[in-house]
C-alpha cells in the first residue's frame, strides 16, 4: 500500500500510516486485519459473557424464577454459539496468528493478503446472521444443534443461526489455508522448521485441523437446514433417517475444534514461559511433535461424546482408548513447560502469571478429561455439570487464559504502549480465583448428578450453584478490568520500545508498533528459537542485521 517514508521511519507505523476508514476496511495488512478481528471478537466475548451472567443469575435459586424456560434455553444456546463460533475458534489464530505468523517468520504479510481480508468479511457476515437469529427471537437447540430437535421440533431461528455458523466456518478455512501456505513458503532465509517458534508449530497444527475439519461441519449444518426446510429425512427416524448420524458428523468437527481452541493457546504459553524464564524451551522437538500428534489423534476420538448415545459397546471401547491416547501429548507439553522453569531466571510479569494460571487450569481440565474418557465412569457423569466444568477448564481456563496471556504479552508490540502492570496483575489474580470458584463446584455438582442445561434444579444442588455464581461475578470483574486499562493505555501507557521484555523472536526485532511491511530488510536467521542464553550474554537486544 503506502511506501514507508525513510525519513520518518521511526514514527510511521502500520497504525498511523493512514487514518482513513477506507484504509482500515480495505486493508490487506495482516496486522490491521488482526486489529479488526480483535475488536470484533472482543465485542462477541462480552456478549457471550453477558449471556453467561444471566445464566448464572438464574441458577442462583433452584426455581426457574428469573427468565422463562424457553428464554433460559436460548441463553445457554446463544452463550455457546457466540463463545465458540464467534470468539474461541477465531480468537488466537485470527488475532495473534494473523499479527504474528508473518512477523515471527520474517515475512512482510501472509501469503494471500486479500484472502485474509475476505476471511474477516466472511466472519462478520456469518456473525450478522447469528446476531439476526439472536435479535429476532433466538435459538434454543443448544450450540450442539442435536437432531431431531434442531431439524424438526425446535420453533426457534435454527436456520438463520445455522447459516451463520456455516458462513463463519469459511473464514476459519481461509485463515487456516493462509497460515499453512505462509509457513511453508515464506519463512526468512535460515529459518528452518526446527528453528521456528513453537507458536508457529501450534498454529500450523491448528490450521491443518481448520482446513480438514471445518468442511465437515459445513456439510452437517447444511443437512440440518435442508432437513428443516425440505424435510429430507436424513436425521428424522420417522422418515427413515438416523438422528445419531448427526452426532457423528457434528463431533467429527467439533471435537477437533476443541484443539483449534486450545493448540494456539499452548503456542502462546510456550513463548511466554521461555521468555520469562530466560531459557530455551525444554524439549523443543517434543512440544512441536505433540502439537502434530494432538491434531492427528484429535480426529479419532469424536465418539467419546456419544458413549451414552446408543453406539455399540465395541465402538465405545475403541473411542475410550483413543481418547486416553490423546491425553498423552498434552501431558508431555505440561511436563516440558514445567521443566523449562528449572534453573531459569524467573520474573513475574503479567503474561507469566497468566501462563502459570494456564498450566494449572489446563492440567485440571486435562485430568478431568480422563474421567470422561473412562467409559464406565462417563455413563454416570456424561451430560452433567461435570462435563460443563471440564470443558470450561479447557476453554476458559485454557483457551481464554491463553488469549489473555497473549494479549498482555504482545500488546506492547501491537500498540507500542505498556499496560499498567499493577492492575494487570490484579486482574490476572481475579480471573484465576473467580474462575476456580465458578467452575470447581460444578465438578461436584456433576458427580452429584445435576444435569446440564437445567433451568431449575432440586434444592440440594443450591449451595454449590451459589458458589458458582459468586465466582462468576468475580470472573466478570477480572475480564472487565483489562478492557478498561488496555483502552486507557492506548493514550496514557508508557512507550514500550521495540522489545520491552528482551524477548527472543523476530517479531521483537522491529519497531513497536511495526511498520506496514514489518521489517526494513528481510532478516537472515542464524540462531535457534529461544536463544535467551545468547541474548542475555550480549546484554542487549539482538538487532536485525542491518
Amino acid at each position, binding site marked *: 500500500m503506502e511506501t514507508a517514508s525513510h525519513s520518518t521511519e521511526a514514527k510511521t507505523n502500520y497504525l498511523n500510516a493512514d487514518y482513513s476508514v477506507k484504509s482500515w476496511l480495505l486493508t490487506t495488512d495482516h496486522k490491521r486485519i488482526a486489529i479488526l478481528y480483535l475488536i470484533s471478537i472482543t465485542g462477541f466475548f462480552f456478549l457471550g459473557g453477558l449471556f453467561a451472567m444471566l445464566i448464572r443469575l438464574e441458577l442462583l435459586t433452584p426455581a426457574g424464577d428469573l427468565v422463562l424456560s424457553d428464554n433460559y434455553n436460548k441463553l445457554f444456546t446463544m452463550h455457546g454459539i457466540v463463545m465458540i463460533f464467534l470468539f474461541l475458534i477465531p480468537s488466537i489464530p485470527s488475532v495473534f496468528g494473523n499479527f504474528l505468523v508473518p512477523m515471527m517468520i520474517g515475512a512482510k504479510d501472509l501469503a494471500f493478503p486479500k484472502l485474509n481480508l475476505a476471511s474477516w468479511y466472511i466472519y462478520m457476515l456469518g456473525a450478522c446472521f447469528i446476531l439476526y437469529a439472536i435479535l429476532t427471537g433466538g435459538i*434454543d437447540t443448544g450450540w450442539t444443534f442435536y437432531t431431531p430437535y434442531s431439524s424438526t421440533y425446535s420453533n426457534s431461528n435454527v436456520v438463520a443461526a445455522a447459516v451463520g455458523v456455516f458462513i463463519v466456518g469459511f473464514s476459519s478455512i481461509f485463515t487456516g489455508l493462509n497460515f499453512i501456505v505462509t509457513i511453508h513458503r515464506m519463512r526468512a532465509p535460515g529459518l528452518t522448521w526446527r528453528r521456528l517458534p513453537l507458536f508457529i508449530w501450534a498454529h500450523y497444527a491448528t490450521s491443518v485441523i481448520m482446513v480438514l475439519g471445518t468442511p465437515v461441519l459445513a456439510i452437517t449444518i447444511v443437512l440440518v437446514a435442508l432437513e428443516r426446510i425440505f424435510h429430507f429425512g436424513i436425521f428424522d427416524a*420417522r422418515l427413515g433417517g438416523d*438422528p445419531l448420524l448427526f452426532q457423528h458428523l457434528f463431533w467429527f468437527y467439533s471435537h477437533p475444534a476443541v484443539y483449534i481452541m486450545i493448540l494456539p493457546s499452548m503456542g502462546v504459553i510456550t513463548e511466554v514461559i521461555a521468555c520469562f524464564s530466560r531459557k530455551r524451551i525444554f*524439549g523443543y522437538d517434543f512440544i512441536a511433535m505433540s502439537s502434530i500428534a494432538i491434531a492427528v489423534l484429535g480426529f479419532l476420538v469424536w465418539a467419546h461424546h456419544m458413549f451414552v448415545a446408543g453406539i455399540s459397546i465395541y465402538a465405545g471401547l475403541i473411542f475410550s482408548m483413543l481418547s486416553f491416547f490423546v491425553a498423552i501429548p498434552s501431558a508431555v507439553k505440561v511436563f516440558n513447560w*514445567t*521443566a523449562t522453569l528449572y534453573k531459569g531466571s*524467573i520474573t513475574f510479569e503479567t503474561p507469566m502469571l497468566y501462563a502459570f494460571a494456564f498450566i494449572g487450569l489446563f492440567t485440571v481440565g486435562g485430568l478431568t478429561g480422563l474421567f470422561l474418557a473412562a467409559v464406565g465412569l462417563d455413563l454416570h457423569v456424561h451430560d452433567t455439570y461435570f462435563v460443563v466444568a471440564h470443558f470450561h477448564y479447557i476453554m476458559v481456563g485454557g483457551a481464554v487464559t491463553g488469549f489473555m496471556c497473549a494479549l498482555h504479552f504482545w500488546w506492547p508490540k501491537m500498540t507500542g504502549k505498556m499496560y499498567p502492570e499493577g492492575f494487570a496483575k490484579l486482574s490476572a489474580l481475579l480471573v484465576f480465583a473467580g474462575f476456580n470458584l465458578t467452575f470447581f463446584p460444578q465438578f461436584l455438582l456433576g458427580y452429584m448428578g445435576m444435569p446440564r442445561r437445567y433451568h431449575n434444579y432440586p434444592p440440594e444442588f443450591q449451595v454449590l450453584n451459589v458458589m458458582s455464581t459468586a465466582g462468576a461475578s468475580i470472573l466478570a470483574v477480572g475480564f472487565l478490568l483489562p478492557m478498561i486499562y488496555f483502552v486507557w493505555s492506548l493514550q496514557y501507557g508508557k512507550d514500550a520500545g521495540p522489545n520491552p521484555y528482551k524477548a527472543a523472536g523476530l517479531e521483537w526485532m522491529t519497531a513497536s508498533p511495526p511498520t506496514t511491511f514489518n521489517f526494513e530488510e528481510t532478516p537472515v536467521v542464524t540462531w535457534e528459537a529461544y536463544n535467551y542464553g545468547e541474548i542475555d550474554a550480549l546484554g542487549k537486544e539482538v538487532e536485525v542485521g542491518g
Partner: protein
Amino acid sequence: MWSNLPLFPPRASSMAGHVDALYFFLVAVAAFFTVLISALILFFAIRYRKERHPHAVQIHGSTALELLWTGIPLGIVMIIFVWSSVIFFMQTRPPKGAMEIYCVGKQWMWKFEHTGGQREINELHLPAGRDVRMIMTSQDVIHDFFVPAFRIKADVLPGRYTSTWFHPTVPGRYHLFCSQYCGTNHSQMVGTVVVMDPVDYERWAAGGVDGSLASAGEKSFQQYGCSMCHRADMAGRAPNLVGLFGKPVLLDDGRTVTADESYVRESILNPGVKIVSGFKNIMPTFQGQLTEEEVIGLVAYVKALGNGTANLPLPVSNPDSGNYPVAPKAEPSAAKSDQGAPAAEPATKSTPVNPPAQP
C-alpha cells in the same frame, strides 16, 4: 460410608460401588498430578526467581525424561482404560432373566409400562434386589434416562430401542432426570424412581391392573389384522411368530439377525427393511399408525409368544405347541441372578419372568 456425604448421590444400585471406586482412583490420580505440577511450578518459581538465580542455565532437553513422562502417564491411563472397560461391560450387558420395563420418553414426561400391565408416568416403582432391564424409545426427540443413585445413564432415541439395566439395592426415592436436552421443559422432565422392599412392591404391583402388557399386545395383534397372516400353521403368508423371539432369523439376502426387541419393532414399522428368507415383501408399514405404547404391547406379545407364555389368538389348533419350550435353554442361567425376589412370581400373573425361578 461416603453415601452420607452430601457431595455424592446415594448409592442405590449394584453398580454404584464400582463406579465410585473408579471415581476415587481418578480423583487420586488427578489430585496427585495437579499437586505435583503446582508444587514444581511454585518451587521453581521461588527457587529460580531472578533475584536469587540471575543467570539461567540453558538446557535443551532430555530424551530420558521425555520417555519417562510419556511412558508413566501412558501406563496409568491404560490402567484406567482397562478398569473402566470392565465396569462398562457390566453396565451394558444385562444379566439373563432381568425383569423388563418398557419406557417411552416424550416432551416432557416419562411413561413406564411393566410387563404385568402397570403403567406409570414420571414415577417408576421397582423392587429392591432384582435385575431390571429398561427397554426405551422416544416419541419425539432424543431424551436420556439418568438415575444418579444408580450411576447409570442411556439416551432414549426416536425410531429405535435402546436399553440399560441396573440392580437396585436400597429402598428409597431417587431422582430420575432427563439429561439429554429436549426442549422447553427439559428441566421439568424429571421423575422419581421408587425402590421398594420386594414385599411392598408385590403389593403395589397387584393393585389396579387390567391385563398384562402382552395381553394388550394381543388385542392390537387382532385389531390391526396381524393375525390374518402371522399364523402358526404353514398356510400363513407371513412368518410364524411362535417361538421366534430371541432366535436367529435367516433373511432373504443371506444375513442372519437375532429377533430382539429392535428387530421386532423395525419389522412392524418398516417391514421391508429385513425380509425373512422365503417370504415376500407384502406387509404394509405401520409407521405412524401405531403409538409407541401399542408397538411396545406388540413387542411384549411377540416376546411372550417366544417363550410360551402366550398363544396366538386364532383358533389355530396348536399343532406346534411342541415348539413352545424353545426358550428353556436360557432359563436356568437366568434363575441364579433372581434369588433376591422370592415373591416375584405369584403377583404378576403373566410376567415373562421365568417360571423355574426357584430351583
